[in-house]
C-alpha cells in the first residue's frame, strides 16, 4: 500500500483513501446499519444548523487548546475508538497512537483492534483511553480492567450501544463473520451494574460511558458518577433510524447540567461541524470515519495532516464567527436552518465527483 500525506484538502485525502482501501475495508469504514438512516441523520442534523457570525471583534489570537482531565489538548477533537484499524492502516492502532502523540490529542483504543492494550500503552507516553467491549463474564471484565490499570491508561470508556451487532448490509458474509463473533453476546447483559463494576475496578481514572442517546440515560449516567457522557449512535452503525447526534445534544447538555463532560461524535468531518457542537454544549468532539479516511490516505502522517487541516478549519470558523477562545462559544452563535443537499457520509465534500447538484 502506498500512502501519502501531501494532500491539500480533505477532498484529496478521501480520494486517496478510496484508491488505497479495498472494497471490504471501504464498506466497513463508510457503511452503517440497514437503511443507513442513522448515518445520514448525523449529517442532516449538522446541516440543519447555521451560524450567527459577529463582526468587528479583534480575532488576531485564536486559542483552541483545552483541558482533558488534567491534560492539555491542542484542540478539543479526540480520536474515536475504531475496530479493525489493522486491516487498513499499516501499523493499525499504533498509527493512531503515533499521530495522537505527534499532534497532541487523546486517542481511544478499541477492544477490537490491533495491536492491542499493552503494545499501544508502551508505544508512547501521551494519555489515552481504553474502550471496553464486554466479551466475557464479570471475571473477564475484572481481568481486563486489571490490565488497563497496569498499563496505566489515562481513562476508561465503556461502550453501551452494542447489545446486538448492527445489521451492516454493505459487509459481505466473510467480513460479517470476522466481527459477529459469539463472545460479543456478552454485550447483551450489560446493565448499570456493569457500569458500577467497571468504575469500581479502575480507581480514580476518568470513566466515560459511550453510546448515550437520550436525556434519561444521560441523567442515569450522571447519577452513576461517570466523568464524561459520550453521545454517539456509533456512526449510525448500530440502531438504525435514531436521531442525528447533534440533535440530541441540547437535551442531553441540559440534563447533564455540567456535572459531567460531554463528548460527541457522528458525522463530524469539518471545522464548522466541530464548532457547532462546542457552541451547543459539547466539551469535545470525536472523529471516526474522518480518522479512518486519513489513515487510509496516509497512515500516521495522513492523520496528522488531516488534523492540521481540521485545526485550520476550526480557526477559520471561530475567527469568522468572532470568537477567540472555546469558552466564548455559546448556543447564541447557532440557529436552525435547512440543509442544502441530501446528506450522506461524504456530503460535506461536494467536489468529490459526479452528481454535482444533489
Amino acid at each position, binding site marked *: 500500500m502506498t500512502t501519502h500525506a501531501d494532500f491539500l484538502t480533505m477532498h484529496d485525502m478521501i480520494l486517496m483513501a478510496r484508491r488505497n482501501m479495498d472494497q471490504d475495508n471501504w464498506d466497513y469504514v463508510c457503511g452503517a446499519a440497514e437503511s443507513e438512516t442513522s448515518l445520514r441523520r448525523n449529517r442532516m442534523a449538522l446541516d440543519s444548523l447555521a451560524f450567527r457570525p459577529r463582526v468587528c471583534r479583534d480575532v488576531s489570537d485564536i486559542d483552541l487548546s483545552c483541558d482533558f482531565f488534567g491534560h492539555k489538548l491542542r484542540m478539543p477533537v479526540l480520536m474515536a475508538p475504531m475496530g479493525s484499524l489493522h486491516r487498513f492502516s499499516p501499523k493499525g492502532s499504533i498509527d493512531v497512537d503515533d499521530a495522537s502523540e505527534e499532534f497532541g490529542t487523546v486517542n481511544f483504543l478499541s477492544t477490537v483492534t490491533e495491536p492491542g492494550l499493552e503494545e499501544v500503552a508502551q508505544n508512547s507516553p501521551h494519555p489515552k483511553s481504553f474502550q471496553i467491549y464486554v466479551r466475557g463474564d464479570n471475571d473477564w471484565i475484572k481481568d481486563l480492567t486489571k490490565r488497563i490499570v497496569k498499563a496505566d491508561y489515562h481513562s476508561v470508556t465503556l461502550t453501551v450501544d452494542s447489545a446486538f451487532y448492527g445489521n451492516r448490509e454493505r459487509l459481505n458474509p466473510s467480513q460479517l463473520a470476522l466481527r459477529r463473533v459469539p463472545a460479543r453476546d456478552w454485550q447483551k447483559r450489560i446493565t448499570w451494574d456493569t457500569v458500577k463494576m467497571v468504575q469500581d475496578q479502575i480507581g480514580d481514572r476518568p470513566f466515560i460511558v459511550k453510546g448515550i442517546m437520550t436525556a434519561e440515560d444521560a441523567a442515569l449516567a450522571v447519577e452513576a458518577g461517570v466523568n464524561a457522557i459520550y453521545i454517539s449512535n456509533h456512526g449510525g452503525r448500530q440502531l438504525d433510524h435514531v436521531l442525528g447526534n447533534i440533535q440530541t445534544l441540547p437535551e442531553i447538555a441540559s440534563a447533564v447540567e455540567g456535572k459531567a463532560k460531554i463528548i460527541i461524535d457522528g458525522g463530524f468531518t469539518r*471545522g464548522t461541524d466541530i464548532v457547532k457542537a462546542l457552541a451547543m454544549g459539547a466539551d469535545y468532539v470525536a472523529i471516526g470515519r474522518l480518522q479512518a479516511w486519513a489513515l487510509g490516505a496516509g497512515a500516521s502522517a495522513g492523520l496528522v495532516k488531516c488534523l492540521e487541516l481540521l485545526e485550520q478549519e476550526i480557526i477559520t470558523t471561530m475567527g469568522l464567527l468572532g470568537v477567540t477562545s472555546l469558552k466564548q462559544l455559546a448556543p447564541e452563535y447557532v440557529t436552525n436552518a435547512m440543509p442544502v443537499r441530501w446528506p450522506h457520509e461524504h456530503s460535506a465534500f*461536494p467536489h468529490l465527483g459526479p452528481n454535482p447538484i444533489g
Partner: protein
Amino acid sequence: MDWEFQTNHEIIVRARRNATGPVWDYLAGGSETETSMRRNRQALDSLAFIPRVLRDVSEIDMSTTILGHPSSMPVFLAPVASLQIVTPEGSLCCDQAADELGLINIQSGHTEPSLEAIGLNTDHPKFYQIYVRGGREWIKDLLGRAKGHNFKALVVTVDTCVYSNRERQKLNGWEPPTRRNSAGREYLAGLSWDIWDDMVGIWDGPMIIKGVGTVEDARLAVEHGASAIYVSNHGGRQLDHDRGSIGVLPEIVAAVNGRAEVYVDGGFMRGTDIVKAIALGAKAVGIGKLQAFALAAGGQKALMNCLDILRTEIEIAMGLLGVTSLDQLNPSYLAKARPVGPSHEMSAFPHIPGGRLI
C-alpha cells in the same frame, strides 16, 4: 439597443466558455461545503409572491436613491475583487456600465485598475470598498485618495478577518491575486469597533458596513454611526454554514428600524429576487456573481446587456405583482414557500445544459 444575449442563461454559458478553469472556480465557488452559498439561493427560493390584479401597471417606476444618490433601479454593482483576471479592463467596465445606466458601482479595494483611474473615469457617484490592511496612517492615506476621487461613500468589509477555505481553488492548486498578497492580514484580523470609530472620524462622510449577519451587529453598527447596513455573507465565500442573506434581512430591517439604509447581496440573479428583497425592506441589492459572469461573457457590453435583462425582469415582476413603484412593495406581497429543487449557484437558471456548470 440590440443586445447579443436574450437571457442571462446565455450569458452564464458564454462566461463558462470564456473563463479558464481557475477563474471560473474563483467566480462560481464558495467556501468549504458551499453551504452558505447554496443557502443564499435556498432562502430566496423559500419565498413566494402574493400577486394583486386589476391595478393599472402601465407606468412602472423602479428608480430609487442610494444614500441620496439617484439610481435607475434598486440594484448596485457589488464590489468584486480581482476583476482584472475576468476581463482585461477590470472594473473600468463596471464604472462605465454604471455611468451609462445610472447605477452606483462599488469599487473593490482589491481590484484593478486603481481607485484614481476609476475615480477619474466618469463623474457619476460611486462608492469605494476598503479591506483594512494597514494601520491609521495607511487608512488615512487611502481614505484621502478615495475622497479626492469622486467616491461618495466608504464601504467597510467586516467579514474577512480570516481568509476562508475555498476548496475549488485549492483542488486546482490556484489562488487569486488577492489571496497571494498576504500583506496586512493581521489588520483584517484585528478590525474592531474602535478602528471603525476612528475611520468614521477620518472619512467624515457616509459609511456602509458590509458583512453584517445578525441583529446584534446591525444595532451596534447603527450606534457606531453607519449610514447603511449591508447584509452579506460574502456570497457564501467566507464563513461556511451561515444563513442565507435574505433569510436574515427581515430581522435586521426591524432592528435598524429606519435609522440606516439596508442593502443585501447573496445569490441575487433574477428580477424576482430583487423585488423580494425590496419587499422585505432592503433599499437596494448588490449583484456580485451575476456581474462577474457577465463580465466574463463579454466585458462592459455583456454587463450592460445583463443589467438590461435584470431591469426587464424587475419590471415584469412588479407589473405582475400589481405595483408600479418600489415604495408600494412591502412584506404583504410575500409568503413562505418551499424550494422546488436543490438550490445552488445556478439553480435560478433551469435551462443551463446539465443544470449546473462546474
